[in-house]
């Protein structure tokens, strides 16, 4: 894929040696190429993480199943969670942010292009380090030595006593390295959005995607660091004989939980806020109206960013905190639902009175709204502390967070893929294939994750490699597993669509959606320098102003 869309005489992409092309990709500092590298990297790990999920679901299709041993299963859920969060969700969202932000704010690149490349390669290396655990140390004998401590690696299970060998260290180091990459990208996003907007683009005039990624990046700075700190402490414990989490020496297992969840909870908002950004760009275009309540959307997001830093111990309602502690976190947890709900209402209001065009990006966004609503409501249930004493650590929680991450974030991502694929590749995707993907994935998602709530309500804990018959869990586990196959089919069709369309799709042109933000004003794909002339803007929808010179936005904003 070339971002040099200006054809120089004698320059024929097909004639260049493979090594040359590889070299340009490996050494690129262009935000668009780095964005694509991030996205492709994430898609590869999405398939790997999906296979890990499939293995687990086959093992759980019936009680006392023997598809994999308990040791392998425990590695599966650890790797699945770690992979999906750190090597799928974070990279793909950073990838889209990298690609889109400079284009949408009228800049030529990110603030620090070399730091950008360095951050990508750090993230990539972290993932490879994590997966090296399969062959590293005690190697393939016994199916490798992948970590098996769960993606949140509670102490003291991670101490040398309970996790000898190196598997836990691959988890720690892989995430430590990719964490530095995340912080690098966050620094870049903050500096780019704050310092490199085109003339006329005040903070109040920039696209919501830029605002939301700014909030996300700010959160990353404050939130990934606690995880880095906790992991450094874990390494001190494991290799220097330290006692940070050594309960035998008076250390605290609970303090690991606090440090981890101070990272872990805002992390899921770091993941969902860019998804909100996609929805905030797509829904207006496909409803043919501006986003309803732009200032409120910004304020709500900033509010979510702050409040979400105060809810972390709702992951710890069962560890025996005091009544006052539990009550405080119940309050903050429920409070964060208010700005989140406001955003849902604003998206609805954007659609209201519009002319909704049900193309693939919009289909996925509508499903997002439906599913994110449910996910938020089950989150409120979990915030009702005594109810959480039953629901915590059960399949109800697993269903809840997959509803957010798959039903919310992944659906919004699919919408974003279809929306911006024409810009990134210059080709239109196949709409019928996209719809097939949508319906297959929707059915599969609901089969799996709607019914997954039920075993949780019937007492099934999470992270168990098998379960007892006679507890009423069998039929639900069977349905949940069946749904996975529909989702897999949907994802395969999605990848096939992207590949086929890249080579054979119709030319998309600069602005196939009749949209209003700056990325649609340049070629598809954009040239390396993004814009021939740095634009000057007067409103939040510069292309609306150009297309409707008699009725420009800046008269009303």
């Amino acid at each position, binding site marked *: 894929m070339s971002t040099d869309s200006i054809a120089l005489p004698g320059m024929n992409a097909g004639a260049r040696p493979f090594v040359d092309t590889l070299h340009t990709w490996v050494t690129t500092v262009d935000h668009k190429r780095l964005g694509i590298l991030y996205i492709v990297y994430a898609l590869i790990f999405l398939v790997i993480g999906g296979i890990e999920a499939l293995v687990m679901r086959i093992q759980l299709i019936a009680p006392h199943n023997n598809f994999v041993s308990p040791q392998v299963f425990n590695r599966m859920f650890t790797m699945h969670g770690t992979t999906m969060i750190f090597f799928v969700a974070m990279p793909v969202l950073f990838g889209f942010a990298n690609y889109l932000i400079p284009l949408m704010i009228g800049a030529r690149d990110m603030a620090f292009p070399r730091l950008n490349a360095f951050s990508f390669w750090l993230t990539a290396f972290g993932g490879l380090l994590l997966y090296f655990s399969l062959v590293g140390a005690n190697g393939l004998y016994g199916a490798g030595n992948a970590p098996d401590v769960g993606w949140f690696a509670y102490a003291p299970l991670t101490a040398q006593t309970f996790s000898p060998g190196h598997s836990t260290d691959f988890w720690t180091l892989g995430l430590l390295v990719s964490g530095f990459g995340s912080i690098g990208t966050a620094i870049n996003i903050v500096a780019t959005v704050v310092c490199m907007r085109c003339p006329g683009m005040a903070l109040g005039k920039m696209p919501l995607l830029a605002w939301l990624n700014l909030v996300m990046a700010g959160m990353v700075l404050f939130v990934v660091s606690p995880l880095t700190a906790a992991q450094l402490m874990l390494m001190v414990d494991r290799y220097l004989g330290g006692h940070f989490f050594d309960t*035998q020496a008076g250390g605290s297992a609970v303090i690991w939980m606090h440090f981890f969840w101070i990272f872990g909870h805002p992390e899921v908002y770091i993941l969902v806020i860019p998804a909100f950004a996609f929805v905030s760009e797509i829904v207006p275009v496909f409803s043919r109206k501006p986003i309803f309540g732009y200032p409120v959307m910004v304020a709500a997001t900033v509010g979510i960013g702050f409040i979400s830093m105060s809810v972390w111990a709702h992951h710890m309602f069962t*560890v025996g905190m*005091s009544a006052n502690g539990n009550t405080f976190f119940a309050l903050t947890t429920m409070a964060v639902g*208010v700005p989140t709900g406001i955003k849902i*209402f604003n998206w609805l209001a954007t659609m209201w009175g519009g002319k909704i065009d049900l193309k693939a990006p919009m289909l996925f966004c509508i499903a997002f709204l439906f599913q994110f609503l449910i996910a938020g409501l089950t989150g409120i249930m979990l915030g009702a502390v005594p109810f959480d004493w039953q629901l915590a650590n059960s399949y109800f929680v697993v269903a809840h967070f997959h509803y957010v991450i798959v039903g919310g974030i992944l659906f919004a991502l699919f919408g974003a893929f279809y929306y911006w694929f024409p810009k990134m590749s210059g080709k239109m995707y196949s709409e019928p294939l996209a719809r097939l993907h949508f319906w297959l994935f929707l059915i599969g998602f609901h089969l799996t994750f709607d019914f997954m709530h039920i075993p949780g309500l019937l007492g099934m804990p999470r992270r168990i490699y098998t379960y007892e018959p006679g507890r009423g869990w069998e039929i639900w586990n069977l349905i949940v597993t069946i749904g996975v196959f529909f989702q897999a089919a949907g994802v395969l069709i999605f990848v096939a669509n992207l590949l086929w369309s890249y080579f054979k799709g119709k030319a998309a042109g600069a602005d196939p959606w009749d949209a209003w933000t700056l990325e649609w004003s340049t070629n598809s794909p954009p040239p390396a320098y993004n814009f021939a002339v740095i634009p000057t803007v007067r409103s939040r929808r510069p292309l609306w102003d150009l297309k409707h010179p008699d009725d420009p936005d800046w008269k009303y904003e």
Partner: protein
Amino acid sequence: MSNDRQTSTGASRSNSRHLLRVLTAFVPLAAFGEPGAPLSPTNIFAPASAPANTIFDLSLFVLAITGAIFAVVFGLLIYAVVQFRKKVDDDGHEPPQVYGSSQVELAWTVIPVLIVVALFMATARVIASVQRAAQPANAIEVVAIGHQFWWEYRYPALNIVTANELHIPASDPAHPGPTFLKLLSADTDHSFWVPRLGGKTDLIPNRENRMWIDPHETGLYLGQCAQYCGTQHAKMLLRVYVQSRDDFDRWAQEQSQPAHTSENTLEGKRVFESTACINCHAIAGTVANGHFGPDLTHLMSRDTIASGVAPNTPDNLRLWIRDPDAIKPGSKMPAMGLSEQQLNAVTAYLLTLR
């Protein structure tokens, strides 16, 4: 178990039963809410004890509110998609461009805040009622210690040490005798979850946690460890036997005695005491005083072995000693490497530990 055997702990409970019957018109809740229905012995919507029933009442309130929110918002979403869909004969003009509305924003800020306040108040009240419950004088005190992958129970006042099967007396509503558990851990994190009796509380090393249950009906209640603790986390099963006061007293009396001795099994006792068994296991009244594994003094009074994984039969016992991984792969019990003769003798000896 039929409805009329439900004893009431107060008006709120019978009200919720009534509400439940009303709501059983809705299939999902009916599937869950029928008390005693054989849907699941670990159904959180079939509480058989305080605080599970208080939690159940709160959960109905929360479900009602979130259900109403869902109905309204989902209805609006469907309406919007249907009503404002681009028509086939669309004229291509853009619809009216609306940028926002302060009044509307205010409305859908204030209403959610009020809802949050209501939910929070209800939640806070139940938190207090559970966590600040005073321990009455005649409460049963149990110390539960989590191990990889089994449960140790001590009754300090009754001089009992046992494992894996928790016996407690049913509580009389007129003179409540709840069970208060102190939760400790010998190794890593665990969680005690018997859904029909109460919410879960974690067992964390170097930390003392406290929980209580107040069951009124006898029976066997199931659960399992709910905090990932290692390879056999899935098989750290819980069995709580709620007995009548008389039955419990009888059980307690037997449990506090030292081990039975029998002439026929002296050979097995000798094998037990001269091999590594005594490093981990204790049998009261003998030299065996290990604490890493379950106390075996009254092993045969239990229905299951390996923390609920296998029925306590002679064959299973023998298999467990010969090859624990055949029953629970990854458990901390090593294969003892005994000869067939030693195995038979030890098994015969253990079978006498009633």
